[in-house]
């Protein structure tokens, strides 16, 4: 028992001593490998956490949002629709929502203006999202004026700033009273942006949606499950520039690893012949290489994963900010609540560790069975 452990340690000693011979090359490989795991793990951790976050935050959003479509475009809900919906069974509350977009030429940012029904915002005042407050340097009590699309200038007093903790959903919000909203956008009286419905029984949501579509043929119901599904597929593995760029990196690494691991030089082949001649079994040579592949890939995986975790959850994912920010001026500052999916980690492990092991092992297999007398014939 002890001897077999000692034997494995001997094999490790040898494989490490061999690796140490080309220190720069092998350390470079380990570094690139770690970096690759780091980026892949960062993407994986980040998107998973973001999706989890979206799922948990948005699971309390309205069950159904009803949009009206005119010529394939989202249009205002005219008066009378709310009353017509009121007769559908199973609907608990109906609420006409008022919201829209405003482009602020001062900081070249888009805001989401909203007149919340549940929250009374006093006329002439605003509650702004944290990113808006940041970009315009606002604090409660300040005055700010926006030029409406009609050309008129409106001045408001900032009544409050939404809490930083909610930034992920509220960064660009500007909350105002209903009267202010209608006046600012010249919104026709009685019209709404869309309608939010809450349905008590989750099993009835689809039935209600079907009834809505039948009763109001020009409307389009958006179910909460569709919203959640939208976010479940946001940054899906295959999507996005990040991975498109990464695929090049992965490919480059694959070539590098293959070249390094499989391009057994004549020198290495000779060494294996020597080892076999002096009493190593084929199995010993393979085990030795298995240790090499295992140690290198495991170290790279663990170190890369830990670094990725720190980057995403402890340092606020600075690497992804420019990517996610795109051309937008407003970007929420948020700390993701860590969510690590075991299956995702296992997948990452499989796709980073196993190819390398294979690249190390496959060529050795052929070489390791060379006749030991090759050492004598050299």
């Amino acid at each position, binding site marked *: 028992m*002890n*001897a*077999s*452990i*000692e*034997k494995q*340690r*001997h*094999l490790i*000693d*040898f494989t490490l*001593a*061999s690796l140490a*011979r080309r220190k720069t090359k092998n350390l470079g490989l380990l570094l690139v490998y770690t970096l690759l795991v780091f980026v892949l793990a960062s993407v994986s951790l980040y998107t998973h956490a973001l999706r989890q976050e979206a799922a948990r935050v948005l699971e309390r959003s309205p069950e159904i949002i009803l949009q009206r479509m005119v010529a394939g475009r989202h249009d205002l809900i005219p008066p009378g629709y709310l009353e017509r919906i009121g007769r559908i069974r199973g609907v608990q509350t109906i609420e006409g929502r008022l919201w829209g977009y405003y482009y602020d030429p001062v900081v070249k940012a888009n805001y989401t203006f909203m007149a919340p029904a549940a929250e009374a915002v006093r006329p002439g005042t605003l509650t702004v999202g944290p990113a808006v407050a940041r970009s315009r340097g606002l604090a409660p009590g300040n005055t700010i004026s926006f030029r409406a699309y009609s050309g008129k200038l409106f001045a408001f007093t900032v009544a409050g700033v939404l809490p930083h903790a909610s930034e992920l959903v509220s960064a660009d919000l500007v909350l105002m009273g209903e009267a202010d909203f209608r006046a600012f956008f010249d919104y026709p009286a009685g019209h709404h942006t869309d309608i939010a419905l809450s349905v008590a029984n989750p099993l009835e949501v689809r039935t209600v949606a079907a009834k809505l579509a039948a009763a109001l043929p020009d409307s389009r119901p958006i179910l909460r499950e569709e919203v959640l599904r939208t976010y479940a597929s946001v940054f899906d593995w295959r999507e996005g520039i990040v991975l498109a760029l990464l695929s090049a990196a992965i490919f480059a690494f694959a070539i590098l690893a293959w070249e390094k691991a499989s391009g057994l030089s004549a*020198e290495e082949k*000779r*060494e294996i012949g*020597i*080892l*076999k*001649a*002096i*009493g*190593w*079994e*084929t*199995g*010993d040579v393979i085990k030795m290489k298995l240790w090499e592949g295992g140690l290198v890939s495991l170290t790279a995986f663990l170190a890369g994963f830990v670094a990725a975790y720190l980057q995403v959850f402890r340092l606020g994912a600075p690497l992804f900010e420019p990517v996610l920010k795109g051309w937008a001026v407003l970007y929420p500052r948020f700390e993701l609540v860590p969510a690590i999916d075991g299956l995702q980690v296992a997948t990452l492990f499989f796709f980073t560790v196993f190819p390398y092991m294979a690249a190390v092992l496959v060529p050795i297999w052929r070489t390791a069975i060379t*006749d*030991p*007398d090759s*050492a*004598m*014939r*050299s």
Partner: protein
Amino acid sequence: MNDLPPIPLPAEGVDTGSPPAGGSMPLDGPALGRPGGGAMIELKAIRKAFNQGRPNEFWALNGIDLTIEAKKVTAFQGPSGSGKTTLLTIVGCLARPTSGRVRLAEDDISGLPERFLTGIRRSTFGFVFQQFNLVKGLSALENVMLPAFPTGRPHRELRSHAESLLDRLKLAHRREARVEWLSGGEQQRVAIARALVNDPQVLIADEPTANLDTALSREFMGILESLNAEGRTVILTSHDPLVVESAAVHRVVSMRDGQLVEN
């Protein structure tokens, strides 16, 4: 020829005529657990073909019958291409004969699977190759320890054993040096130390003096003599007169065209 302090060896003495009775030298490594331990090697009708069945088929050995005595120094001599190195690979379990039987101390080993053959090779034979075949980039000490790695011998013990072997071969001061920085003579001594690390009963050397000058060749023969004096069987190939005519060699087997030549 030199002082041998730390190794458990019988007292130095060139007692070539009669090796230590019973040959019960203390082995601290795994050795063939056979009574007597005298590894007599018997070859019967050995034939060896290369590229068999192809147009370039070539019979390197063509019916060899030979008994190699234990605890003696036997030299195969012959021109290059006479098959002496091939015979050495068969004696040393590096290769299997195409036909014929190899018996090692009464056991027929020609039919054994590779795994067992490797085990026998590791514990019974130590090899000193013509080109030394050291693993470049590793230190002398690491090279010496290599053959013992698959045995799982405890590191500390193995290391001190390898150090004492290097010490005995007057290489203690070079043990941390990479082997490619050593001179030819030093490299050969590392190769000898490596061949001895598993305490084999048989030492096999292929053209040991081919890359050495006269002084180093003499030194090598001295080492060989002392190893034989410990009770080890030595088998070597050479066409160097300095070797085959040396008093240390008990028996010279001449070969030509894959067959033994009576002399």
